[in-house]
């Protein structure tokens, strides 16, 4: 990445479009503080990212990446409860979260027996529980049906209304234009039209 400068304001959703291999996933994972920069600085949620601030900063970040994070041998409700416990969220809210994403009747199904779209919905349910201030979506809507994409849109809207920010990465520019307040292009390690 070369001379990348990106600012996401509270309540804003910034789309990043780019071809395969342009560094979109690296950008998202850097913003999530999962990848460290060897030059420059990263400020997330008002905090300059250094080792001491990592845990509290990370807990305010929500990420949906390429591959689902569910444990295949656990049921959907067990997966969500596990994540809720680690996040310090009351697990009594889990059934409600599954209901809102439309998976209450499939909650006892093992993740390995569920479709990609169902697993995505569970990840969305997790973010509805944890209410992140910074939402990062890496090709999150790819391969999803219309109702699941509507859920992503509802999630982005919810984060923005709470004053949080979103970075949405996709190779589908049309999808980004619908979802985001502005769209930047990433190519050859450079980002254009970002403030």
């Amino acid at each position: 990445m070369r001379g990348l400068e990106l600012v996401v304001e509270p309540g804003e959703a910034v789309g990043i479009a780019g071809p395969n291999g342009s560094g979109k996933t690296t950008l998202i994972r850097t913003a999530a503080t999962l990848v460290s920069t060897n030059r420059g600085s990263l400020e997330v949620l008002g905090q300059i990212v250094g080792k001491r601030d990592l845990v509290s900063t990370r807990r305010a970040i929500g990420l949906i990446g390429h591959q689902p994070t569910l444990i295949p041998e656990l049921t959907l409700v067990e997966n969500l409860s596990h994540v809720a416990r680690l996040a310090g969220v009351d697990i009594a809210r889990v059934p409600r979260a599954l209901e809102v994403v439309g998976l209450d009747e499939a909650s006892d199904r093992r993740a390995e027996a569920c479709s990609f779209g169902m697993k995505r919905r569970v990840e969305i349910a997790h973010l509805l529980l944890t209410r992140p201030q910074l939402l990062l979506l890496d090709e999150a809507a790819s391969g999803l049906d219309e109702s699941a994409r509507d859920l992503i849109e509802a999630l982005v809207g919810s984060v923005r209304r709470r004053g949080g920010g979103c970075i949405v990465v996709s190779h589908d520019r049309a999808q980004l234009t619908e979802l985001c307040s502005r769209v930047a292009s990433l190519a050859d390690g450079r980002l254009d039209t970002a403030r």
Partner: protein
Amino acid sequence: MSFWNQALEIARVDLTVERRIGNTLRITLPFAVVALMVFPLALDLRLALVSTIGIGVFWALGILFGMQVALRQSATDTRERRDLQALLGVDPAARFVGRLLSGGVLMSGFLLIVLLAMVVLFDPDVPNGGWPVLTMSTFLVAIGLTELGTLAGEVTSGLSNRTVLASLIVAPLALPLIIGASQSVGALSRDTGILPWILLLIASDLALAVAGVALAQPLEEATR
């Protein structure tokens, strides 16, 4: 969530997954017992040897098959799951301790059953006072092997040849465990002290535990 609660939660889920996959009980354990049966056949049934080699065969097979328990599928995290755990604020050291707890339970059970099978099949020559020493050594080896396997699994995380590569890393590093375990029982028949060998096992376990906790964070960053 506190450090220990994180560790316990990870251990709980790990054991639940392993119970559902069942590789340790259904595959690794029967395989280890079949391997026990191979030795006397390979020795051309020189049965006078069988009783004398029984304990040694147990340690050798315990280490080799125990590595497969330590590197089991349920103890593997994908990159995405590790990212999720990082964002949830899971301390990498807590993950190590959690895996140690669940792996320790599985490994202890595994080694004890293989020990029992060895006793039945080999009728080993155990010196006076040897059974408590053998049992204690088995637990200490179980802990050490779990620590080694967990560390090696982290180092080789995400690699396609993870299991084989991790086994290669664990095998030589397990030598202090084998030496401490075999010499502790051997010391009884030689009428020398067992304490240095038990201390070697305890020291190895402690050193590996400290290494696992101290290196957890750098290992996590190295595997991203």
